[in-house]
């Protein structure tokens, strides 16, 4: 039997149903791989006992002929999703001891469809970061290395643990969350696929909040089809989330027809930013050529406000974060340090509990919401955000989907940008605009850079039209024939 960890999620699903192997075997293989991959630091909590119990339960169901959509498939869960009885940290010291008594809606749906939990994946603290270096539990290392260069490279962020686990083949798929690019950018850095669906597609209930108007859960996996399968299970209206949308969830797998004849694909020229490496530009053009060859019509479109997206995002997201993170005060759960009085307890708890990047964003957010600055920052940012959404709406009058690079570079070395927040924030330059507009965006592996690291292309679709995004992504994937794998250096 081939290595079970080499199967895609779809192949594993079909193999289990055909009784070629059991979920217990499949899960065991992934748990072993997870344990041997500890040097990547992709997990904050491993849950092999739970995984085994879930796999055994799945096997019973399969024996009874009651297999569900994800029956017996082992997944990594970003440690931002609350999991009942399993510690949920958001990669923060302040939540280090926190064990929820409840299960997030998205993970509940995955378990209801038969999926198996391998563990809780590492991430940037409170999902704030683009390199997975801000985790209190240490950085995640990208399984990819530059040939001839053993320096650790970042997996991207914030869903870095999820991306690494999938890329290094110890999870068939993973959940991620994306606020400004946290699914798409790590997917690109690790050479896997990941989709951030339309804001409102997946319930946010039970996901530790970063920026409520932007946070959105989505799947990460090695193929577009695997993402489609996972997305269907994760999506759906939730009365407990007032911002979730009450619309039927399509069978996304069925959307992958391979046919994009006559599809209009927009190329937003404004994404050709200064200083973008030539090979990324070249890959972008190659992507457009592939789609054209498959019958799509390539059209340039204008997204004039693109340059304002990043500054807008870095006002809106910190503003919401400053308020969302006020609840971590040491009073009811999580870390509490002793203080002489209430203020002392607050200051000690929050000063010790939050890392530098989180503190920075809380301070920025507090500042932009303050009396006298609100209009100049927050209110103006909201207006620009509305204009950016309008820009996209106009573009989608002309085209069906947009093609852009996912990130302006390949995975950089650990420590390379951690001293310069602006350089770090620039990683999100291509992913943030769709986040601000609430639109679905997907990253697909498109090739390797000249130095042997994965590069991704991004597709952005109309609101609630994940089907077109996935269908186009599958065509890109087919054309790119991305078969490179990271060298398995971590097993020695």
């Amino acid at each position, binding site marked *: 039997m081939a290595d079970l960890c080499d199967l895609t999620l779809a192949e594993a699903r079909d193999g289990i149903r055909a009784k070629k192997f059991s979920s217990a075997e499949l899960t065991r293989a992934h748990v072993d791989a997870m344990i041997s991959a500890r040097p990547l630091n992709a997990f904050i909590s491993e849950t092999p006992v739970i995984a085994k119990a879930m796999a055994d339960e799945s096997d019973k169901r399969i024996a009874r002929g009651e297999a569900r959509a994800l029956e017996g498939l082992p997944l990594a869960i970003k440690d931002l999703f609350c999991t009942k009885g399993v510690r*949920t940290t958001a990669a923060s010291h302040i939540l280090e001891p926190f064990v929820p008594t409840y299960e997030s809606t998205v993970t509940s749906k995955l378990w209801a469809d038969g999926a198996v939990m391998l563990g809780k994946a590492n991430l940037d603290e409170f999902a704030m970061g683009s390199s997975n270096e801000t985790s209190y539990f240490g950085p995640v290392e990208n399984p990819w290395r530059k040939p001839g260069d053993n320096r650790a490279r970042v997996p991207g962020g914030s869903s870095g643990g999820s991306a690494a686990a999938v890329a290094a083949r110890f999870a068939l798929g993973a959940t991620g969350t994306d606020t400004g690019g946290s699914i798409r950018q790590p997917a690109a850095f690790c050479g896997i696929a990941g989709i951030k669906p339309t804001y409102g597609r997946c319930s946010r209930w039970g*996901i530790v*909040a970063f920026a409520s108007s932007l946070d959105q859960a989505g799947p990460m996996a090695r193929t577009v089809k695997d993402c489609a399968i996972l997305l269907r299970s994760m999506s759906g209206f939730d009365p407990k989330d007032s911002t979730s949308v009450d619309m039927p969830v399509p069978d996304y797998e069925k959307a992958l027809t391979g046919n994009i004849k006559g599809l209009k694909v927009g190329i937003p020229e404004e994404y050709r930013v200064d200083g973008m490496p030539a090979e990324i530009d070249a890959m972008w053009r190659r992507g457009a050529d592939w789609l054209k060859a498959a019958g799509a019509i390539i059209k340039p479109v204008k997204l004039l406000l693109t340059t304002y997206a990043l500054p807008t995002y870095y006002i809106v997201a910190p503003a919401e974060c*400053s*308020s969302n993170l*006020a*609840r971590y005060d040491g009073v009811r759960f999580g870390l509490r340090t002793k203080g002489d009085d209430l203020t002392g307890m607050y200051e000690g708890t929050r000063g010790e509990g939050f890392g530098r990047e989180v503190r920075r964003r809380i301070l920025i957010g507090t500042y932009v919401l303050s009396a006298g600055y609100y209009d100049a920052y927050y209110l103006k940012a909201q207006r620009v955000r509305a204009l950016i959404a309008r820009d996209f709406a106009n573009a989608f009058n002309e085209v069906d989907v947009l093609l852009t690079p996912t990130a302006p570079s390949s995975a950089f070395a650990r420590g390379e940008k951690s001293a310069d927040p602006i350089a770090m924030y620039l990683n999100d330059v291509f992913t943030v605009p769709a986040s601000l507009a609430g639109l679905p965006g997907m990253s697909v592996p498109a090739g390797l850079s000249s130095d042997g690291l994965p590069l991704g292309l991004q597709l952005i679709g109309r609101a609630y039209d994940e089907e077109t995004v996935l269908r186009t992504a599958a065509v890109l994937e087919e054309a790119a024939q991305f078969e490179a794998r990271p060298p398995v250096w971590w097993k020695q």
Partner: protein
Amino acid sequence: MVEAVSIVPTPALLKGETGDWELVIGLEVHAQVTSNSKLFSGAATDFGSEPNSQVSLVDAAFPGMLPVINEFCVEQAVRTGLGIEAEINLRSVFDRKNYFYPDLPAGYQISQYKQPIVGEGMVHVDLPDGSVRSVGIERLHLEQDAGKSLHDQHPKNTYVDLNRSGIALMEIVSKPDMRSGEEAGAYVRKLRTILRYLGTCDGNMEQGSLRCDVNVSVRKPGDKLGTRCEIKNVNSVRYLQQAVDYESRRQIEELEAGRPIKQETRLYDANTGTTRSMRSKEEAHDYRYFPDPDLQPLQLTADYVARIKATLPELPDAKRARLESELRIAPYQARVLVAEKESADYFEAFVAAVAKRTGKPLQDIGQDCANVVVTELFGILNKEGKPIEASPISADALASLQALKMDGTISGPTAKKVFEEMFATGKDAAAIVEEKGLKQVSDTGALEALVDKVIAENPKQVEQFRGGKETVITFFIGQIMKLSRGTANPGLLNELLKKKLQG
């Protein structure tokens, strides 16, 4: 809506060293919405439960928890808005008011800041002299209550009870339209009455279901508004008046001593009846309001508002007007009857039952029925410190008594005695009358015998009467009433006596 006849009161001026001062008062009333569950969670809202027994994960702001608006609370706010003649904003927005305190679990309160659910309205306040002060309403918005910090449970630590956390409040902000503590008190009473008629707030000030913050400033008549101070922690109508009286005196003294008023928040101390500075304008929190991204703007339809409007009960002003015009009840009594919804309900049930029993039109019996309720029933209830709901005599039982009086079965004085007996024992009127033989004697033959007997026994008084001292007739009435134990029909008796004495 029946327009109240507005006799605008003349502002009572306060005398100071430098002349007269006018007092300007505006109120912010926090009214707890009557609802079984909280504003954004399904947790229960029962008062007086075990600490932290009515707390959901949302109320305790656990990670990943999200608020979901309670539609019933929205309906209650709209109903209240309609009850205070206010415009309903079809689109309103929930904002976060950010500040740190242990009894505020999320670190922010969900409130409505720039776009409240209810806009401008009006409350007509009845003043003791019969005049009406129309107080403008600036806005009404929905917000969450905070929990409670308990500082007296431990020598060093503070305990937090989150039962109240997340309970729906309506903040009702008046315009600065009141001119005395008395008016402010009357406004709160009237607002409370309206809320209770609407069933949107139980108005219980002792349990904190209705709380007030008062804004007070003073000015020379005709001047523009002075600098105001906000007084917090005013939790009864009596305290409200005390706080206003103290604060206005304090401000006048300050101004007359040449010290300008600083805008600040002050705390009322019920023990001393004084106010003291809590924080200055400079120390005020920067709440960093912004729209709550977890909630969509609240969008209502005109149809929805119309449907709620159609279910509004008759409100006190309209009811009072109807009692005066249709039941021909005197203004004072009408006002007393409508002041509490329960009293009004009792009265209306009573008068309807009387009409049914006697077949008489409401306009003929209204005033008499009002007298019975206001004078007799309220009199004895007040004396015993009982609310109308605790009356041992039901509206229907009282109606049976009233009917017996009206059809002449018993006399007025007997009715009073029967009433007292009913109140004491809860017995039925007819049973008491039967048991004690109190039926009015209207049988001419039986009365005639009594009259003859008394005339025969009192020749001296007969002499006096016939000598022109007609007032002596009361002596005879008294004697006969005594003999009949009050059951003699007074009209008939009078007639017979006159005839016989003149005879």
